[in-house]
């Protein structure tokens, strides 16, 4: 259910995580301003890069399934609510052309952003993303970037653990016929309370284990190796974004 990192040795995998994050931010901002031609180009670029990263289209589609449904809703809602000339003259299909266009542009932008996000997710090691975030936070005052990085690392590490615990608890409750309970309050507390208790126990043990392994403020940072390929990638992304802005 969770789409995560897939290790690989493709060009996209090898680009410096900091550059990937910068590119993601740049693309997302630019695509918020593009119209149809730019969107088509950006969409094509995203698909080419996903293919270059050896990410199967079926896999992507599965990952974005619910997101696509939401986007479909946006198109439909926009088409119905925007005033203008009807697409087809039929009382059962009240969509307008202007509405459909507006909806498609908005959904297209969100789709492009989501696809680039997916590309980063699939091709970048979580620890590299964490290190890149730490690097970007460094110049910002009052934010302890190392602690933020540690928190991000623990968050990613413990999502599957807690997910498994909640599934286990849910099974245990079903085995004792929780479904017979009509009172939703009871059902939520019966699940939430033990889940939280376990989280507390885990937190206690984790803190001890981290202390035992000498966790502190001074840690070895990530070793960045930025080659010419990375700079080329950055140049390419910037150029592409400029092109998108120019044609929209």
């Amino acid at each position, binding site marked *: *259910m969770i789409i995560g990192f897939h290790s690989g040795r493709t060009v996209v995998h090898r680009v410096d995580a900091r550059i990937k994050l910068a590119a993601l931010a740049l693309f997302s901002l630019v695509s918020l301003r593009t119209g149809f031609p730019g969107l088509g180009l950006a969409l094509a670029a995203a698909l080419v890069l996903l293919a270059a990263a050896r990410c199967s289209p079926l896999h992507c589609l599965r990952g974005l399934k619910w*997101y696509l449904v*939401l986007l479909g809703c946006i198109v439909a809602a926009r088409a119905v609510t925007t005033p203008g000339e009807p697409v087809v003259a039929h009382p059962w299909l009240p969509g307008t052309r202007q509405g459909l266009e507006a909806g498609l542009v908005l959904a297209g932008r969100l789709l492009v952003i989501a696809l680039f996000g997916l590309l980063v997710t699939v091709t970048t090691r979580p620890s590299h993303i964490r290190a890149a975030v730490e690097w970007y936070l460094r110049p910002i005052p009052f934010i302890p970037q190392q602690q933020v990085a540690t928190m991000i690392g623990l*968050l990613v590490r413990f999502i599957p653990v807690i997910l498994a615990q909640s599934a286990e608890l849910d099974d245990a409750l079903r085995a004792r016929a929780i479904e017979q309970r009509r009172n939703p309050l009871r059902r939520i507390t019966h699940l939430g309370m033990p889940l*939280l*208790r376990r989280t*507390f126990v885990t*937190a206690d043990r984790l803190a001890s284990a981290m*202390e035992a392994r000498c966790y502190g403020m001074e840690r070895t940072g990530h070793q960045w190796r930025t080659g010419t390929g990375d700079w080329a990638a950055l140049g390419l992304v910037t150029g592409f974004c400029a092109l998108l802005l120019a044609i929209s």
Partner: protein
Amino acid sequence: MPNQPLDLHRLVLASLLAALIAVGGYIVIPIGPVPIVLQNLFVLVAALLLGSRWAAASVAVYLLAGACGLPVFAGGGGGLGHLFGPRGGYLFGFLIAAWVVGRISETFRQRPVAEIIGMVVGSLIIYAIGVPWLQMMFGLGLGKALAVGMYPFIPGDIVKIAAAYAIVKGVRPLLHSGRRPDHGRSQAEPAE
């Protein structure tokens, strides 16, 4: 976010509660016409247990990780697409709600009435950001946006506030007793 000194236990707990908030997006309790998703429940619980600063930090880390493409958002990949997408308003609402609810609980020293009112305020904040966002996305009028993005969830929210209160009441004692014996500070305590 709190700076030094490093409170490792708080940091770990805030990270795990962020993970719980992320997992909450996947936990659906199928009761009634609108299924109950537990995500905002855990935001409220985190706010009451961690207090304003760490709760806001916890939600902020969740959003930041998601924005950077780490797979933390329910409903698959997409990263920034989720933050900018239809649900984005609610996600940003969590951040402010976590801080406000934590702040109210701190100001009134965890008095039950204040905490419940705080959670009601927090839930309203989430809608105050989420619903206009939805309006903008779908091009809906306020009335319709409320009908789609708020009214159906109100019964669930009332149940969740009650549940959050019960859960926090149940686990808060563990938060304080759990910390004492382990961290080498025990020599400072009188042996009663």
